[in-house]
């Protein structure tokens, strides 16, 4: 058994820095590279791509990334774990195998984790009484049945641990929890008992710190953010894990960023609910037990984490077609920038009304004034604002209404208040709204599958 392993985060979401994983494998020693690509609605976007082309439905960045990093990972024996397989982890793995084959790599083992995609099982589940009630509203999914675009179960660390035990160099999964990607190598390398919930929680907390990439190493840090060194080449986090569950969060020395008590604390509170009950498929971690010790030199020790047994449910992330939306904007300059923008909004609404269009919601915001902090902005001098971007957004089940809204923005330039600009990029086009539907499913109704592909 190793006395420690170094797990590096290479991606915090799909669209994150393309260079980050390359820097992680080339700027110092690591044992694992973990990459989280999936946000709540990413699966539905991928499902749409797969519906159009059965070869797609995964993070297309991955094959290109492996072209750059695979030879390095093979030479340095760095294992890669990612949920970028999306709704088509098999096609993703095949694409990576193709890359490997072109690079003349041999002896490569890729494990594919599937079984999370339950879109084809929904009718059967409903027939058996599982109505996937919405976790927020309590509604049954039955009235939305025909609009469902995707449905994926969040698996935890277990199938990834199985994959590593099969000898995988690369693990490609569908919808796996962000935290499971980091916890799994700890369970595998240190032979942790998966019923040891303090250890499961220790690895889960490390996963939570790594899952948003540079957000724990100085990115989006609201404390003394000007003290963050070299944002341009910011280092993503590395979890140095020990068999007893202690973890030191750090980054490569040659890269920028900042790791201290404040940056780690800020990531710990990110997108959590009740801190005593951080629920994953692997455990319920108690964030109020976490102890942080700032060791200096961009190293923070995370220890004393306690937790308890997981629930009997997996979370399911479903999405459904929720109509159409469009956003239009125009910019008004001083003098009276805000007044002009308010007039323009009133004129626009009158015109939409005259046209008899139907909207579920019309929302107006004045960027430069209140789009972030609403009424809290009221204590500034409105007459002295230099410029305001009028931003109007609409949503409707009626495509034609949304489409026509897009044609009513540009005319305001010649038919409304003066000193207006910023209408570039053409008319706002309706985009399909993909709505999110979180639910729970009994763990014994689904099971992950792990398959090995070799070259």
């Amino acid at each position, binding site marked *: 058994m190793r006395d420690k392993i170094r797990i590096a985060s290479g991606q915090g979401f799909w669209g994150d820095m393309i260079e980050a994983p390359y820097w992680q494998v080339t700027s110092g020693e690591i044992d694992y590279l973990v990459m989280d690509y999936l946000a*709540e*609605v990413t699966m539905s976007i991928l499902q749409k791509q797969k519906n159009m082309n059965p070869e797609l439905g995964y993070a297309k960045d991955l094959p290109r990334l492996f072209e750059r990093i695979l030879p390095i990972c093979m030479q340095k024996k760095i294992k890669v774990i990612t949920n970028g397989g999306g709704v088509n982890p098999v096609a993703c793995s095949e694409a990576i195998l193709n890359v490997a084959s072109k690079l003349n790599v041999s002896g490569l083992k890729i494990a594919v984790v599937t079984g999370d995609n339950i879109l084809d099982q929904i009718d059967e589940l409903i027939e058996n009484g599982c109505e996937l009630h919405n*976790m*927020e509203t309590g509604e049954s999914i039955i009235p939305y049945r025909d609009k469902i675009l995707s449905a994926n179960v969040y698996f935890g660390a277990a199938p990834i641990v199985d994959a590593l035990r099969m000898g995988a160099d690369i693990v490609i999964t569908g919808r796996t929890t962000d935290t499971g990607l980091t916890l799994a190598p700890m369970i595998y390398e240190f032979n942790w008992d998966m019923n040891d919930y303090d250890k499961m929680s220790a690895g889960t907390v490390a996963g939570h710190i790594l899952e948003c990439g540079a*957000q724990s190493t100085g990115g*989006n*840090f*609201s*404390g003394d953010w000007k003290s963050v060194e070299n944002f341009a080449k910011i280092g993503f986090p590395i979890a140095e894990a020990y068999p007893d569950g202690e973890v030191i969060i750090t980054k490569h020395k040659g890269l920028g960023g900042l790791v201290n*008590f*404040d940056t780690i*604390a*800020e*990531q*710990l*509170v*990110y*997108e*959590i*609910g*009740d*801190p*005593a009950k951080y629920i994953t498929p692997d455990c319920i971690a108690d*964030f*109020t*037990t*976490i*102890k*942080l010790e700032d060791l200096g030199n961009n190293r923070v020790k995370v220890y004393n984490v306690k937790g308890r047994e997981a629930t009997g449910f997996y979370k399911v992330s479903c999405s459904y077609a*929720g109509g159409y*939306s469009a*956003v239009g904007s125009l910019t008004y300059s001083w003098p009276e920038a805000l007044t002009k923008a308010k007039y323009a909004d009133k004129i626009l609404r009158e015109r939409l009304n005259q046209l008899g269009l139907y909207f579920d*919601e019309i*929302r107006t*915001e004045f*960027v430069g004034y209140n*789009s*972030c*902090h*609403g*009424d*809290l902005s009221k204590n500034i001098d409105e007459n002295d604002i230099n410029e305001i971007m009028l*931003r109007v*957004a*609409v*949503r409707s089940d009626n495509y034609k209404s949304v489409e026509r809204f897009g044609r009513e923005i540009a005319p305001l330039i010649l038919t409304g208040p003066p000193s207006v600009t910023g209408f570039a990029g053409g008319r706002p086009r309706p985009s399909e*709204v*993909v*709505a*999110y539907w*979180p639910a729970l499913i009994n763990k014994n109704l689904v099971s992950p599958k792990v398959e090995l592909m070799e070259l």
Partner: protein
Amino acid sequence: MQIKLRDIAHGRSGDKGDAANIGIIANDAESFELIKKHLTAETVKSHFKGICLGDVERYELPNIRALNFILHNTLGGGGTVSLKHDAQGKTLAAALLRMNIEI
């Protein structure tokens, strides 16, 4: 004397469906006592009048000198449904850090 919350704390916010979460971390032990006293579910709800349309839940993490708030019915439907510029509540921590505190 009146100070701004940002003089003694920092924070981060994000989304959980239509709810926003705001984590506030005090700069030191003394400041943690102040934020515990002044940041209640009620004062936070009232600060976000017109933005937070639902209940506010409050949790303490004394181990990292932090408070966590869940603001329900705040993000215009949440996720991709929301028409808000800040549909994920990313700037709401900064909005809370504007709060004035009497010391």
